[in-house]
């Protein structure tokens, strides 16, 4: 655990911070515009998406340079703009955005990798009729992801987080005609929702305790001194302070998004989406958002730790990460779908990042996040290129020998694969993974995570070599059609990503830990003494050895002697008892099927029965009663009220007709009646005055 030097935030927002909101807004606006386009306007849609993300990239680079120039000895740039969204009573809900080293690195990474994947998609999705819809969703995703990164408010972050989840759902189910894709989209949405419920609880708790959701706000934000001390002083039970408990609730959201145990089940299924989506969302950025979130709220988790000590919350993060790293790597060994192997690899690497955060602090985890984003995007795009070249075939047993058919893809894929394995010295993955392993071997609480992560590294080398052997070596085992190399628009992003998969290692070597210094606000200096740290040399040697063992063993098993697609795997032949459970993904889906899902199904049946029999019965009884009452009312109305009224009217009108005959308009008639009446009157008078 490294102590970060005290930040001396600069409050005065600079010009670039003032317009930082443009970075997420540009792709979002583009998304809205693309949504209005008709299907055939492909070029315009792609142009809008790529153009808007280019704007974001340029602004991100400007912001990054601004942070770089503002970075002096023990003072880092942390500028933010806050505003009140709405207020109720005396309390207000504030939103805002922040520019600090963490955000600066992330916006550059997201917009850069995103831009490359957008360009790649132009080639990959060229034959899809829903090209415009694809770019609409992708742009929305990019905007929301950039929003997550620059939010200075947990609420704004949560909103963008949910938009990101929505676009993930939309893009996994992009080919919704396929039932598997629709089911995978639903699964991803529901599974991440489980984590998000806890995340929301954490947000509510944090707000109730600190009265603000802003991260940084001139010393009164929720991640700053006062609030943290306040949170630390409250006990939440189980040996946790309120800060740690809130941190863990937020971590639960990250578990859902980043596919950590036990909520990892959605990520392999998410590979039903188009490959660029897998590369951008389910490898490089969105799944890393969980790691970023933990890094963002790191003060909550870290507060209360002794120097070089740890907290209960961070211990949980470490163990979850380490178990995920090994667990997913194990499953990846026995998968046959090229994208599923990479998906499990992603889960495993996300576990490394989480463990890195828990063990070594923000910089260690974030460095692996950044390097992983590049080489995993590279691997996914390479896999997409392979799938494209093999006519939508995803089973690695039906590939083979692509080394000569797709040389450029092979070269870049090999670079990505070696970076992922952590091939010594040259590749970025080596340095970022060794950072984590180094932190793990110095962890005081237990050496368990260290051994788990080392084992995970061995497995990583093994399964990646297996995959490369299957895909690129041996002979072509597919159908009659042979593979072809992908167009330039797809291979160019591969080449650029491959360059970064190697080059990025330079900024995080022990000799020149620039990245760590940048994030933790120290001075970066070059010195070979970085390697002289106790245990580091041995560790580098050991981890190199592990990688070689994994590579060699896998090569010995699979290299150049691949069987027919129908024949069993080499490992399956030698150890079927190990192979079967790994192939079946260690039965996690089945376990959920018989526990959680079975319970829900039962509960749904109970609810259905209650609905139909009990509530439905009551409702229909009431309906019947009302029907009866209405019939009664109808009779009353028709026979009594209406009938009586009609009769009265009839009588009146016939009486009127009779009387109207008298009023004929003839004066003489009137007079005649008058005379008759007088005669009658006189007669009556005479009659009555008779004695």
């Amino acid at each position, binding site marked *: 655990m490294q102590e970060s030097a005290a930040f001396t935030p600069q409050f005065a927002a600079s010009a670039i911070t003032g317009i930082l909101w443009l970075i997420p807004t540009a792709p979002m606006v583009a998304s809205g515009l693309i949504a209005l386009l008709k299907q055939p306007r492909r070029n315009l849609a792609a142009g809008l998406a790529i153009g808007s993300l280019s704007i974001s990239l340029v602004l991100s680079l400007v912001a990054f340079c601004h942070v770089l120039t503002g970075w002096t000895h023990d003072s880092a740039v942390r500028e933010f703009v806050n505003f009140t969204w709405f207020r109720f009573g005396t309390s207000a809900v504030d939103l805002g955005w922040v520019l600090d080293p963490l955000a600066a690195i992330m916006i550059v990474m997201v917009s850069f990798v995103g831009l490359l994947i957008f360009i790649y998609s132009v080639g990959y999705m060229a034959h899809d009729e829903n090209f415009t819809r694809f770019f609409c969703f992708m742009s929305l995703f990019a905007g929301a992801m950039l929003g997550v990164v620059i939010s200075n408010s947990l609420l704004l972050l949560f909103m963008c987080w949910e938009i990101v989840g929505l676009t993930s759902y939309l893009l996994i189910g992009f080919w919704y005609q396929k039932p598997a894709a629709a089911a995978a989209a639903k699964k991803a949405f529901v599974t991440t929702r489980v984590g998000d419920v806890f995340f929301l609880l954490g947000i509510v708790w944090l707000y109730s305790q600190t009265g603000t959701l802003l991260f940084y706000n001139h010393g009164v934000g929720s991640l700053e001194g006062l609030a943290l001390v306040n949170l630390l002083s409250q006990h939440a039970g189980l040996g946790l302070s309120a800060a740690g408990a809130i941190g863990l609730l937020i971590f639960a959201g990250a578990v859902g998004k980043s596919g950590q145990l036990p909520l990892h089940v959605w990520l392999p299924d998410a590979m039903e989406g188009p490959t660029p989506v897998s590369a951008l969302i389910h490898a490089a950025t969105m799944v890393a958002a969980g790691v970023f979130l933990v890094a963002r709220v790191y003060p909550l988790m870290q507060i209360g730790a002794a120097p070089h000590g740890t907290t209960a919350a961070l211990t949980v993060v470490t163990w979850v990460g380490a178990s995920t790293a090994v667990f997913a790597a194990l499953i990846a060994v026995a998968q046959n779908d090229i994208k599923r192997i990479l998906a499990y690899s992603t889960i495993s690497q996300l576990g490394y990042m989480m463990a890195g955060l828990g063990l070594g602090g923000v910089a260690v985890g974030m460095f692996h996040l950044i390097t992983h984003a590049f080489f995993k995007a590279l691997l996914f795009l390479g896999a997409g290129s392979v799938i494209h070249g093999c006519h939508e075939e995803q089973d690695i047993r039906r590939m083979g020998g692509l080394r000569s058919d797709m040389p450029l893809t092979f070269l870049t894929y090999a670079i990505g694969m070696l970076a992922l394995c952590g091939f010594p010295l040259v590749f970025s993955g080596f340095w970022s993974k060794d950072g984590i392993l180094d932190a793990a071997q110095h962890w005081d609480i237990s050496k368990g995570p260290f051994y788990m992560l080392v084992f995970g590294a061995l497995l990583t080398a093994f399964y990646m070599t297996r995959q490369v052997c299957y895909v690129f070596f041996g002979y072509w085992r597919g159908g009659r059609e042979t593979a072809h190399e992908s167009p330039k628009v797809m291979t160019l992003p591969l080449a650029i990503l491959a360059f970064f998969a190697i080059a990025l290692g330079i900024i995080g070597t022990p000799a020149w830990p620039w990245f760590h210094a940048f994030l933790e606000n120290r001075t970066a200096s070059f010195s070979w003494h970085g390697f002289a740290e106790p245990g580091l040399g041995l560790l580098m040697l050991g981890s190199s050895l592990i990688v070689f063992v994994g590579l060699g063993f896998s090569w010995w098993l699979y290299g150049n002697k691949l069987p027919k697609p129908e024949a069993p795997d080499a490992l399956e032949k030698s150890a079927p008892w190990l192979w079967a459970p790994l192939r079946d993904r260690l039965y996690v889906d089945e376990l959920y099927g018989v526990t959680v899902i079975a319970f829900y199904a039962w509960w749904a049946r109970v609810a259905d029965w209650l609905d139909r029999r009990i509530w439905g019965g009551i409702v229909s009884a009431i309906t019947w009663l009302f029907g009866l009452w209405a019939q009664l009312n109808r009779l009353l109305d028709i026979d009594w009220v209406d009938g009586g009224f009609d009769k009265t009217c009839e009588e009146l009108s016939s009486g009127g007709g009779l009387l109207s005959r008298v009023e004929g*308009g*003839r*004066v*003489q008639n009137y*007079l*005649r009646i008058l*005379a008759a009446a007088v005669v009658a009157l006189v007669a009556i008078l005479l009659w009555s005055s008779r004695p």
Partner: protein
Amino acid sequence: MTTPLAGYLLVAALLFAIGIAGALVRRNAILVLIGIELMLNAANLNLIAFWRYGPHPELLTGMMFAIFSIAVAAAEAAVGLGLVISIHRHTNTTDLDKMNRMKG
């Protein structure tokens, strides 16, 4: 002065009956007017008769009533005949049954 009051009243009633019969059965507006005049004069005759046989025959009250009534009747007859002549000019008839429209 031996004739009793009833004699006068009978004459007046007869006159009234003739007047009303004329007013009712005649179609000619002028004859109807004459009938009305007859009824008026029957009333005048009654006024005189009741005055003469009343408690104060010396006060000339009945005479005054009758004279006023005759004056009013003369005016009325003049107006009525004027109307009849006006209608006759307009419609060329004095038949009451044909005068069933207010519109000219």
